[in-house]
């Protein structure tokens, strides 16, 4: 279990804490999302959890090992992938990997080589780090994070700036990591990615923990809008749809607004009443609205 208790961080010469008494847990075989507005404290939380930044207060424990008191052992269990991977820009991937492998406790270089191969970086190993694209840099960051075969991964905005192929690769890797028994804490602005990948979502706002929601619950809460296109939109159809929420019509299209709308139930009701459902879609923006509502409540 990766466990954070009462984590706070106030930067020098800053009055307000960047992170204020945050506690959270990430278990094995679990993908947890961490969402929040810019400056909410997501990155700081992850940086503290991997030992890059020192906390002002609080504890980080990995499988019972305190990061503060057993840094070397604890860090072996954590892999960190920053949003903007930064390494010596003039060093080649090979030299960086040799150095990190040695630092990570004499990990055989073959391990790193295998990871480079797996992440499609074998052809780039002689390149200087500065020559890589953001996507390749991010892949290299995963290679470095994976050197010690950690049990937990901390991913900071892993989908930012990636092309669709890279995003699919990362998504697949996250799912595979969970299946392999790893725990993943993932901060992201991409709420749909969070929703599709995470078992739980934690909301952080202004450095404070706001709420923890299970993915299924999130989906239920988030789907406040449904758009239906039927073969005929008569008053009976409207009355039927009004059972699920507030309805507005335009031609053969009806938009339903409400909380916890189940698209399956709407579809069944329409079909049983003799209507032909030509299209049924949830509103993509609703997750954001839900998130904003949580933030507003917290504010």
């Amino acid at each position, binding site marked *: 279990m990766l466990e954070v208790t009462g984590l706070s961080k106030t930067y020098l010469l800053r009055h307000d804490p960047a992170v204020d008494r945050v506690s959270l847990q990430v278990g094995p075989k679990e993908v947890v999302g961490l969402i929040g507005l810019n400056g909410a404290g997501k990155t700081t939380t992850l940086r503290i959890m991997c*030992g890059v930044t020192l906390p002002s207060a609080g504890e980080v424990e990995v499988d019972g090992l305190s990061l503060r008191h057993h*840094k070397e052992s604890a860090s*072996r269990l*954590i892999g960190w992938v920053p949003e903007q991977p930064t390494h010596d820009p003039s060093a080649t991937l090979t030299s960086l990997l040799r150095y*990190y492998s040695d630092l990570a406790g004499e990990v055989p270089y073959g391990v790193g080589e295998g990871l480079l191969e797996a992440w499609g970086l074998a052809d780039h190993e002689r390149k200087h780090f500065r020559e890589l694209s953001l996507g390749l840099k991010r892949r290299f960051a995963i290679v470095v994070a994976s050197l*010690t075969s950690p049990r937990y991964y901390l991913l900071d905005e892993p989908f930012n700036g990636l092309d669709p192929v890279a995003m699919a690769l990362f998504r697949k890797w996250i799912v595979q990591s969970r299946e392999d028994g790893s725990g993943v804490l993932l901060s992201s602005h991409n709420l749909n990615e969070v929703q599709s990948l995470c078992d739980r979502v934690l909301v952080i706002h202004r450095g404070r923990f706001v709420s923890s929601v299970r993915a299924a619950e999130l989906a239920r809460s988030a789907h406040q809008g449904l758009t239906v296109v039927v073969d005929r939109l008569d008053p009976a159809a409207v009355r039927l749809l009004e059972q699920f929420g507030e309805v507005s019509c335009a031609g053969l299209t009806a938009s339903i607004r409400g909380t916890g709308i189940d698209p399956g139930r709407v579809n069944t009701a329409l079909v049983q009443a003799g209507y032909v459902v030509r299209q049924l879609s949830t509103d993509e923006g609703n997750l954001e609205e839900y998130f904003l509502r949580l933030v507003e409540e917290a504010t």
Partner: protein
Amino acid sequence: MRPILRETLRAARNPAAIVAVVLLLATGTLTPRLAAPEPAASPVYYAVSANYSGGYQFNFLAYGSAGNVLEGVPISLLFYAENYSGGPPLKNLSGATNSHGFLAFDWTHPQCRCGLEMVVKRAIYDYELPDPASSILTSFNSFVFSVRSEGLFESRPSQLVVGFPDDVDSVPSGTSLEVCVTSPGGTPPPCTPRSLGAVTELPQAFPIRDLGPQSDAARVHYSLVNQSGATIGTYNVSYGSLDPTDPSNAVVTNAGSSLQTAVPTISFVVALAAVLVGYTTYGRDRLNGSLDPVLALPVTRRRLILSRYAASLAVVGSGAAMGAVILGLALPAVSNTPVPPTIWIGLIAAFVGEAAIFVGLVFLAAHLTRSGSLLLVGLVLFVTLLTLLWDPLVVVLGRSLGLTATRSLGSTGYLMNPAESAVSIVGYLAFRLDGGRPLLIPTLTNPGLLSALVVTWAVVPILLAWVIFQVRD
């Protein structure tokens, strides 16, 4: 050892480290060639002769060993023979350069020009007149050479202190002081005495700057006169003029003094190399975030900072040591005498000490700023200030605080300067090699204190950097 070795290999592969080491080797090779050849067997004198021939005009003559001065540095000497008689024959060395084996300055308007000259040649240090009768530079060192004159630097005797004659227990009421001023080598009294006022206590200081065109002359005769006009005692005080041709005042140059030509140059390069290597090994990584992925690995902060410190030190120290060895190989080309092993050991120790100091300062500075370019530029300026501009700064600062530019101020300056404290080890050893001449700065005569200074300067910055890194980051 393994982390240190790993970091050292990494640091040594860094292009900046390679540049730094090449710079050190080049400096070791080239510096002796810049030094003037030592005169084969002719003794070189060092002494000061001063005379005041009117107003604030002050002519100053100093002889220095040839090995102390870089070849080609234009140094002119304008020696006034006006009102001079009875002394040894004087040379007019106007327009001379150090190739003649003499170091001399002409300060006809010392209030402005000398300050700049001194900065350029780094030829400032301690000259004072604790006892007006011995206005001799007790020693001087190539680039550490000084006279304080009117203006920025205080050299002229500014006051006459009347003390207790052996046979006078108290000051009779109505006692006054009369002085008679003559030019150096001039006719002794009788002359027209001038009264400086009543003597009410002993010792008592009287300003003597405003005695007229002949004031501050080389000889002042003063008398204490009581109320009835009877002279209590007559005293003669002489300024200046130690005969530079007197063999007893001679200093024979040797490799030690030549070596000192190289030391300040190499010291500057060592400090620059330390900044460069310390910055690329730690400072840059810390400021651009390259240290972050390392911190996320199974590495403690203590291990990281100390191993990188040791690695930087190993790279710069090795470069400096190699530079010193090359210097040793190149020195015979310009020197007639061998340098004892003690000096070489001291030289290497001093450069390694200096590297330790500056690497530590870079590590500390990296925790006090957020801008890499600001850090680098600031450190280079800092190094220049400490190695090249320190002495004038101390004097100017001291005077602005109302302090007299004295040896104690100079000592304080050394205590405050990490670069000087390390290199002063070499100065100490070189002076010892020169036959035990007294050092200008009293602090420097104590090797224990010197070592303590260097160790303190080396340990405190890296310790602070470590503590900051450990508790607040």
